């Protein structure tokens, strides 16, 4: 079974296999042997990739991984089927919500719950990077709820306002989009951080704590090191951070 990641806006599939006790990965068509060896500092690892040593730092928050290698930090998203399905489900449930196109602060709110608005009507003004962006309705709608208040700060993907159909007689469902946004279309869809997802992470982490150590002794070193990396990332997912000494 393959495993999907997104790196630099490109999807990549990693296929694991074990041959004669040795872990092999097929990554974007190339087969490599890979082992992670822990280093001394928090997040520090050495990746042995076909015999070459690649020192790097890595940490995970849920299904998002950060890899610092050769002076650059890369963000990699794990896109396993379960998480993707959840994200789709939450998107469907919030299809009428306008999501924040980027992190920012609400400058002003122009509408109130219950208002009927025309297509193009100004709903609220947000500010990000010291620039203001008008959030408008992309179709005539009724404001079901305002999810933010003036002055409130929000992260990317947070629902800002929920739109409903103009008439009570249910028409066709349409999806609102924030426009015009300076970044519209530049990124793949914004993903709301759904409660379901956080819960999944929490329960995953809980499970990891009680699980017995894996990677039986008969298995090769490669797989052991791999497991170690795995359990560390689990602990991280649980607390959302890497255990480390407090500085200063």
């Amino acid at each position: 079974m393959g495993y999907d990641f997104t790196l630099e806006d490109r999807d990549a599939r990693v296929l694991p296999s074990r041959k004669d006790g040795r872990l092999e990965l097929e990554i974007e068509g190339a087969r490599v042997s890979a082992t992670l060896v822990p280093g001394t500092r928090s997040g520090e690892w050495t990746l042995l990739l076909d015999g070459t040593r690649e020192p790097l730092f890595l940490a995970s928050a849920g299904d998002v991984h950060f890899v610092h290698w050769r002076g650059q930090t890369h963000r990699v998203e794990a896109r396993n089927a379960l998480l993707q399905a959840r994200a789709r489900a939450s998107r469907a449930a919030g299809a009428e919500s306008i999501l924040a196109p980027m992190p920012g602060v609400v400058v002003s709110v122009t509408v109130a719950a219950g208002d009927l608005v025309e297509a193009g009507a100004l709903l609220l003004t947000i500010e990000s990077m010291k620039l203001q962006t008008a959030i408008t309705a992309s179709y005539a709608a009724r404001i079901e709820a305002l999810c933010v208040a003036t002055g409130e700060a929000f992260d990317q993907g947070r629902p800002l306002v929920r739109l409903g159909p103009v008439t009570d007689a249910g028409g066709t469902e349409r999806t609102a989009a924030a426009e015009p946004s300076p970044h519209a279309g530049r990124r793949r869809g914004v993903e709301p951080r759904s409660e379901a997802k956080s819960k999944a992470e929490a329960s995953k982490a809980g499970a990891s704590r009680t699980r017995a150590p894996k990677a039986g002794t008969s298995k090769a070193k490669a797989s052991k090191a791999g497991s170690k990396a795995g359990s560390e990332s689990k602990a991280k997912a649980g607390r959302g951070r890497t255990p480390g000494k407090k500085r200063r």
Partner: protein
Amino acid sequence: MAMGRRQGAGRTMGRVAGLGKVLIANRGEIAVRIARTLGRLGLPSALVAHEADRGSPALGAVDEVCPIEGPTPVAAHLDGEQILAVAKRIGAAAIHPGYGFLSENADFAEATAAAGLCWIGPTPRSMRLMGDKIESRRFVAGLDVPLTPSVSEADDPRRFAERAAKLGFPLLIKASAGGGGKGMQIVRGAAALPDAIRIARSEASRYFKDDRIYAERFVESPRHVEVQILADTHGRVVHLGERDCSIQRRFQKLVEETPAPGLPRPLRDAICDAAVRIARAADYHGAGTVEFVLAPDGAFYFLEMNTRLQVEHPVTECVTGIDLVEQQLRIAAGEPLAFDQPGIEASGVAIECRICAEDADHDFRPAVGEILVFHPPKGPGVRFDGAIAPGQRITTAFDPMLAKLVVHAPDRASAIDRAVRALGELVVLGCTTNAAFLARVIDHPDFRAGRVETGFLAARAAVLAARPLDAAGRRVVLAATALADRDFQDRLEAIPELHASMGAWRN
């Protein structure tokens, strides 16, 4: 986080007489920076902190933390009344405002003094005089310091657009009470002027609660050169050399260095002299910075004066060995400066890179996240002023600047090498930063050659963009990620030895 070697040695003259507990009315890296000097001088330190500051190392850098509240974290830090009440309650003797927040608020400085506390900064009178862009220009015009041609809206509001257009394009529209590039726009033709005026006015009113604006002639390919001033209350005014802060995005500085590269000695002296003249005429006390625009032809124009400690003050500290926060404290306590102009010597080159939580590859959009792993760069000539710790949540509640990497080396090429290396060594996982972008900027041949101007980044956006990983690089990052990923690990366990064939597991 050691200061440069030279700091602390030689210039320290023991205790600051007459100063007691100092309340730092700020947060983040500058709070840590101020606390360090307070600690070294044996002065008790206190810090105001909002709930959003939780987890910041600044809280551990002071002797006392005082909670403040507000409708937003920024509002709490701007609530002068509340902060003064805190200061009185804890028996503080002085308030250090750092930069930003209340640092240039003359009313707050006045209220501090009225409450019987010492304000670590200039007098409210010189803050008012130099803090207002229109007022300060009027004042400086009388001192034989060149100014770019400008018109103020207030002089004749109805004919403002017409008068502005007469200056000639390109124009810069600015907020009179402005700062930090807010409300600032370049206008290249008459057609765009009405809109630019309208937007500038609304931004000025919103950011500064003061909708006065003015227009000035925009100097093409300008450099931003500023001069660090120290002035005591006994009539001595000195400069600590210049800084070049031309590398900017959205009119905000990203890289600063001293000395300004390629500046002929007579020009440098003329700029520094003009700064001293302005500070003296303004009867200025404390640390301040006079900013100039330098045209490619060597003409320079007064821009504004910042009546506070600057973000980029460490580069000056590195080359002069003078602790500017210590000098601020001594001046505020009424001590005379312990050195005169010839006694100030600068050695080597210092460069500062502002580490910001932002995505340089997506229009410098602010980045958020929880710090998972943090390792600052170390080594000789490397100073890292920051307030970052694992577990800290980076939000958009505050300015995106997380830390400042400052390097000091005998010459500019070595300083750049040192900064590039240190930027690569800095590890911040959990929140995107601009560290790799900064390394590309200062490693660019034009930066290395000293060809800096405020349009540097915009003109080189394409070549400064991150290069995608090659196939081998992707394999490294993906292999590491896969091995660290929990779900991937689960699948590995499920792969029985017998079914080792790759094909069988494809789906």
